[in-house]
């Protein structure tokens, strides 16, 4: 399990004349959990958006399985699950409709497992309630249900535990661990204290930031 999947080389990103990080290099192997750390405004979200391929305001190179990202985005997208600041949940649709939409976007999702996934995130009984009637935490859970469905190898999670209760966080930590054990990669940011300390590799952004 020491196959290097993701390589980041000399990443440099500048925002509004402020250098967020420079000369940031790291490699991620299959089965690793990586936590990006840093104070607010240190560029954690920016880094995750760059890694996911959403943002192209950077210099340096990112390679997935040895191929630069820009060369084959569709192939990369097939193996990527991105969980952003906004959960990507339509408030007028029900949790089930939301997940069915994700199943259409990512055809590897098995429609029959949607029920199970909603059950796993504690939304049983809320399948047919429009999401705007649910709480903030429940809305995040709708999106987190994708973790139970996805067959993507690389998970990029930006603050996945915001508004999630303690039990929920513990359950999701187990999912992250299980994902790592099946050879997946998790890259996440969170301000929660993770119980996974011994499994997590930390990358601190402050150490890589230049002076402006």
């Amino acid at each position, binding site marked *: 399990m020491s196959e290097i999947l993701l390589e980041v080389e000399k990443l440099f990103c500048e925002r509004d004349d402020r250098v967020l990080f420079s000369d940031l290099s790291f490699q991620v192997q299959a089965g690793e959990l990586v936590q990006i750390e840093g104070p607010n405004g240190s560029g954690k979200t920016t880094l995750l958006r760059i890694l996911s391929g959403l943002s192209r305001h950077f210099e340096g190179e990112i390679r997935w399985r040895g191929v630069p990202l820009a060369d084959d985005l569709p192939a990369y997208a097939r193996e990527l699950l991105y969980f952003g600041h906004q959960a990507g949940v339509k408030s007028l649709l029900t949790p089930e409709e939301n997940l069915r939409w994700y199943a259409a976007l990512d055809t590897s999702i098995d429609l029959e497992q949607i029920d199970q996934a909603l059950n796993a995130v504690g939304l049983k009984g809320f399948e047919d309630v429009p999401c705007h009637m649910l709480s903030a935490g429940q809305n995040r859970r709708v999106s987190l249900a994708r973790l139970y469905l996805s067959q993507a190898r690389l998970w990029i999670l930006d603050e996945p535990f915001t508004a999630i209760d303690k039990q929920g966080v513990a359950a999701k930590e187990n999912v992250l661990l299980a994902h790592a*054990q099946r050879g997946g990669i998790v890259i996440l940011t969170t301000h929660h204290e993770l119980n996974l300390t011994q499994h997590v590799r930390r990358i601190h952004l402050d150490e890589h930031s230049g002076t402006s």
Partner: protein
Amino acid sequence: MNNKATNACHLPELKSGEISFQPGRIFWATLVRELNLALRRRSDLINPLVFFLMVATLFPLGVSPEPSVLSTLAPGVVWVAALLATLLSLDSLFRSDFDDGSLEQMLLSPQPLFVVVLGKVLAHWLLTGLPLTLMAPLLAVMLFLPAEGMWGLMLSLLLGTPTLSLIGAIGAALTVGLRKGGVLLSLLVLPLYIPVLIFGTAAVEAAVTGLPLGGFLALLGALLAAGLALSPLAIAAGLRISVSG
């Protein structure tokens, strides 16, 4: 802890290799989703239609209630009103997807983005362009458009309004990242609407005077075909730029 974790959740096997592209499925899913959303947010549906009606009502009040004057104005008035009503509805095309993060997920999907975009634009046309076309005869009667012009009006709108949706979506995609993109959207899109307006009203006037309108309809059809082929790519590129910023 490790044992507990593996017992606690059953994740599907990681996929290996290729997955199939299913453009038909994603297109259909997008269409159904958009129509569903619109049905649950009915006010957005009716607003452009009311606007269409009100703009057309202003002309008899402001210009002249004389049938002879109005009947010469009618083709242009109906077309301009339809164009403005479409413009009004464009800002919300990608706005809510941008705000709630759905747009990011569309961009990161392995499915081709232009198919998703095409589904969204078709839904937009079904909910604005098509009702506007169906409502146009009512306004035409109100503005004393001669009965011979009615078919020309309907056909030209039927061919022209999808083009308006397609071109407008490019502007909507480019301005979705801006907090107040509405005005900029109009400035970007209105000049591009001019050819459609010219051929559309020309078709109606030809129908009124009894000239053949096939040529104008063919031009509108050509604009639509070009729009269908090219604008999804431009919309997709615009969305990538907006989200990247």
